[in-house]
């Protein structure tokens, strides 16, 4: 049983969730409330991780985040250390990989808000950030929570993308899903079974909560 891997998975999922919530909330708002040219193209693009095999997403991220990639080079120039095979690297990869899981429920929640509430808030003098904070967020708490949980679970379950970007560095990038795979590879079935069993109730419980939050 690899406790470090389990702990690392939770840490990765938690950080990814926080980063994604902050990142996608304004994005979802723009997509729902603003008429932007090329909106459909943008949405299809950020939703690509839903449709592509994780290895394909991982491959492109590898190209971009590697030492020869645009982003990888920029990162190395700024921080002096490479991005691949580090915890930061897999956080970035998970964020990209989970964007659709954050965006879709958030969008749905924002779309459910009565547009007249927003008109009313505008007339009452609120600017866009205030409307977001005082009207949109409090009226879509369930959707936001569902979105956070889905991202958390999806990151907990990520395998291919993390393997391609992070490899399996113990304590850095060897998350539970990878540790389980390696345990099976080395015929340590007992260890794999225990770790799998540790993830199962977490995922089940959270899915139940999502169901509760989004029903009606």
């Amino acid at each position, binding site marked *: 049983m690899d406790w470090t891997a389990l702990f690392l998975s939770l840490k990765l999922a938690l950080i990814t969730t926080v980063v994604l919530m902050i990142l996608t909330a304004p994005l979802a708002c723009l997509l729902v409330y603003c008429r932007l040219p090329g909106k459909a193209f943008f949405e299809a693009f950020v939703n690509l991780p839903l449709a592509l095999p994780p290895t394909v997403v991982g491959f492109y991220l590898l190209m971009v985040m590697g030492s020869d990639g645009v982003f990888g080079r920029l990162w190395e120039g700024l921080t002096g250390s490479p991005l691949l095979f580090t915890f930061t690297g897999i956080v970035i990869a998970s964020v990209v990989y989970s964007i659709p899981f954050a965006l879709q429920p958030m969008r749905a929640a924002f779309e459910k808000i009565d547009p007249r*509430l927003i*008109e*009313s808030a*505008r*007339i*009452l*003098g609120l600017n866009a950030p205030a409307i977001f904070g005082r*009207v949109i967020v*409090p*009226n879509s708490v369930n959707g936001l929570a569902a979105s956070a949980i889905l991202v958390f679970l999806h990151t907990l379950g990520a395998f291919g993308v993390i393997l391609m970007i992070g490899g399996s560095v113990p304590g850095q990038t060897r998350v539970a899903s990878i540790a389980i795979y390696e345990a099976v590879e080395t015929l340590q079935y007992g260890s794999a079974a225990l770790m799998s069993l540790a993830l199962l109730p977490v995922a089940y419980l959270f899915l139940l909560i999502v169901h509760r939050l989004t029903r009606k």
Partner: protein
Amino acid sequence: MDLDVCVRKRLPPFELQIDLPCPAEAMTVIIGPSGAGKTTLIRIIAGLEKADAGRIQYGQEVWLDTTQGICLPPQRRRLGYVFQDYTLFPHLTVEENVAFAAKDRKKVRYLIDIFGLSPLVARRPDAISGGERQRCAICQALAREPRVLLLDEPFSALDVFTRRDLRDKVRAVKDELSIPVVYVTHDVNEALFLADRLVPIVGGRLDKTWLQRSLARAGSPGEERSRSMREPRLSLAY
């Protein structure tokens, strides 16, 4: 200060073309059949909808001037708007709704008192009646100390008793305030009771003869009468 409105807008069935001075001392009531462009007009005044051409001026302040490309967003017009159906914030209590855009807490308490909402302050909008919700919406609009008050069929979804009660309240409020109030309705009875100035709009244009025509039509037997035409009789019966 007075509000001066002169706007045009192409709507699918007709062109809205209205010249409407709203003096500060008067309650201007816009009346007309459904689909006459009343709500569009009031939404243009609020800044929620764009006009094709026109000018809206409050005192010396220009809110809209299509020739100069000026169009103030609703936030900067500082007006009160009570919508046709309840648009209170569902996540806030009655008191929080009234205080939503208020500058002065004392004003909030005062409004809650005179509109009889005191026993309901801690309730959410879904736990109070339609009439109470609209009273709360009026308080919310007034708490902001608006420069212009717009009411778009605020009581049309309420029963006749509640409506009469609220109508009296609105009249009383107007007598205290010296701001332009624009009230939209399709109810002749309500219009005659409230109006200092009556503006009948039909097909997007001012139609001075509409009121006479519809009153005359109500008198003639056999013809189908609208609900608004029957109501004066109802109110006599009560």
